[in-house]
């Protein structure tokens, strides 16, 4: 092999590596951004392109989003309406204050009607062990009857909680905690 052929072969080899590396370079850049973001914000390691799935119990689907409505000066817990389930799914991986506030504003802008003593569907399985927090419940819907009036919402509180698990070596079970990672209160224009 002449020196010219060797030069050509070396050049070919390095350009092959260069072209073949382009997608991996993009992967590394996005993974570094995700790694930094997940360590400095509320981004779950499972999402964002850093391949941190199956590394922590703090998966977005295990994060809990709770909703309270402020009516007549009191905050009442309310089950998240099904209409908003995809919004909640989008919020859970990265519940920054801005993203949480946006969702709270959208919830506050909708019409809430005081329900007639019905338990929220998700409360029914645990109702035998405990009581509802309040006799008053609200649901998101258009008022259908004359006696249903639209509630005057003074504000909406959205909280996001991340799971944390501590193993109990004696029982082989453990304690599962919920830690608050976001807490946003949005006052409606009526209160302003």
């Amino acid at each position, binding site marked *: 092999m002449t020196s010219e052929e060797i030069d050509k072969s070396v050049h070919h080899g390095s350009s092959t590596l260069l072209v073949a590396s382009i997608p991996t370079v993009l992967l590394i850049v996005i993974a570094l951004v995700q790694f930094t973001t997940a360590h400095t914000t509320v981004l779950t390691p499972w999402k964002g392109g850093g391949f941190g799935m199956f*590394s922590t119990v703090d998966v977005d689907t295990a994060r809990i989003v709770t909703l309270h409505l402020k009516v007549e000066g009191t905050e009442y817990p309310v089950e998240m309406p099904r209409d908003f389930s995809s919004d909640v799914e989008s919020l859970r991986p990265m519940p920054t204050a801005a993203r949480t506030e946006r969702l709270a504003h959208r919830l506050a802008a909708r019409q809430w009607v005081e329900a007639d003593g019905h338990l929220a569907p998700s409360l029914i399985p645990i109702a035998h062990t405990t009581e509802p927090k309040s006799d008053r419940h609200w649901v998101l819907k258009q008022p259908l009857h004359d006696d249903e009036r639209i509630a005057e919402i003074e504000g909406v509180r959205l909280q996001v909680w991340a799971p944390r698990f501590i193993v109990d070596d004696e029982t082989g079970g453990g304690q*599962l905690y919920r830690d608050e990672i976001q807490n946003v209160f949005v006052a409606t224009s009526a209160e302003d």
Partner: protein
Amino acid sequence: MNWTLSNARRIVDGSRNMPVVSLVAVMMLVLILLWANLTWIIIAPIQVLVVAGLLFEKIRTDPRFWCVMTALLAGAIYWDWYPLDNHQYLFVYLSLALFCVFHLPEQRRKKVLALSGRILLGAVMAAAVIWKAVTPDYLDGTFFHHALLTHPHLQNIAIALGGISPEIINTNEEQLHLLHFSYLTSVPVESVTLQGASRIAPLALFITWWTIGVEALLAVLFLWPRRLGGDHRFVFLARHITLILFITAIYPLAPVIGFGWALIILGFANCAEKPTIFRPIYIALMLFLLFAGYVNFV
């Protein structure tokens, strides 16, 4: 009947004679068609592209085709950055790799595709290992301990090998429900107790170290430099045998078929330079994951 058989034979013969780079493009298009999670605005143009690419080799081997495909897949990621799973990002990198490959003269394509598949897969595994290594609740077994007690896909393993009963599984599900919805009650709880069994901890530790160990091994094998023997037959064999075992074994833990298929295509792409037994094995593995996904055998 004869017509069907002759057509089936023609398809088999066609795929056998199809250039391997084009075959990877076909696999990639099927992957996108079945497993890409796309926002409504991008679905229609991508489906049109996929059908056109599947029908015409000239289209699927055109770099402009893969440039547009990469842009559309990246657009889907931009649209839904946070909720999307990691393998959706991998689809973009694979598409970009094909754009780079088809941009080259034909005689260089196999080599670049093989190298691209190798380092992409190595980088994915390295990122997964780094995340697991720096996350405190992974290395001490907490993550898999919790998963064995609560995750639906691990429940059968927890019952068969971890010694917990279906009643404990049900009780733990109720506890999870309580943690999610107790804020609606007069007694909101900040924590709940999950029940387990003495064999869960060692089982969780075994799965923990097996997973990170195999991922680390794959990262090393796929990123092993050529000048240090990365092209040696032994390394090649070890790389693909480990990947096939990993995909086959990990499916019960993480039944994400799209991710499995993307890893298979990367492994297949790494076999682009020369015919090998691993090519048909990878195609069979794709079908196996698809079948297993429908049957949900675990």
